[in-house]
């Protein structure tokens, strides 16, 4: 997994720097767990909505003019396995076999801030059908 490679790179660059930068992979396991639960809840839109960040739920409801459960059920959110996790500070990215999901750390644990994302190429942001406004 990419996270392990990054651990080595950080260690080589300097343990002291790592200590102060707080950029370690703390939370990678939690992110992987949340992303896997989110992806695996293909037939349970309510469970997916519970894992969304509050501003994403708000945007979905407003944008689709429907409940969160109805809105997310109609969107192409991935359901594949988690293949890689990146955690940087309060933000994280989980790559699925069929999607890329972004998460943020909240008081209630990691929440999904974007899903159904497609890459637009290097150096460009993903376009995501599920995201906050």
């Amino acid at each position: 997994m990419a996270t392990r490679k990054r651990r080595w790179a950080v260690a080589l660059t300097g343990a002291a720097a790592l200590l102060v930068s707080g950029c370690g992979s703390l939370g990678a396991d939690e992110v992987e767990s949340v992303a896997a639960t989110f992806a695996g809840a293909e037939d349970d839109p309510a469970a997916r909505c519970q894992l969304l960040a509050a501003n994403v739920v708000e945007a979905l409801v407003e944008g689709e003019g429907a409940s969160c459960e109805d809105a997310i059920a109609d969107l192409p959110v991935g359901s594949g396995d988690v293949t890689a996790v990146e955690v940087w500070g309060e933000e994280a990215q989980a790559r699925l076999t069929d999607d890329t999901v972004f998460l943020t750390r909240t008081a209630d644990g990691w929440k999904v801030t974007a899903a159904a994302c497609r890459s637009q190429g290097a150096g460009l942001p993903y376009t995501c059908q599920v995201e906050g406004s």
Partner: protein
Amino acid sequence: MSGVRRFLRENSLSLGFGALFLLSLVGQAFAGVADLNDQRVSDGLDPITLGRFLTSSSFAVDVMENWQSEYLQFFLYIFATVWLIQRGSAESKKLEEAGTESDEKQRVGAHAKRDSPPAVKAGGWRTAVFSRSLGLLMGTLFLLTWASSSVAGWAAFNSDQLGSHEDPVTWLGYLGHADFWNRTLQNWQSEMLAVGSMAIFTVYLRQRGSPESKPVGAPHAVTGQTG
């Protein structure tokens, strides 16, 4: 005068700046977490605690990018002032003294005195290293803090990347990124400006009693005098 009071008085320069440094760092921590949380709340994200901020890459890079430039400033200044001179400046040696100067003037080799540091009386590599120890330490601290700045900046950059739904980059990729060089050069330029300004200002301006200034009555053209 009691022992403590004497100690405080005789070390007031380093103690005073040490205290100001700590106060400033504490102030930066509180201002930094407030600023970051303002941004996070406006982005619809939860605020983070002070403890979490203090271990974050965001705080680390803001600290390290300033430290590295300060140590670079002193490293360059220490080495540059061996060779470069400024006529009339309190920060410069006399015009004819440019260079590493004679053993006699530097009190090394056969000219070492009884009260010279042990590394000077030892001769050989110990004297060679000690003769450059100030610059070497500053240079080493610069490299360490610059490397730390690059790692902390990389982490902060990648956090921002993920926050805006972009892929993170490798450390080498970050070293070639505009964000790293913008953070680095914006600090370097201010340090070079400060040193250059000081070198020129002390030609024409005075601060009575300061060792960083020439004596008030010293002529503008006199170089290398301090008050």
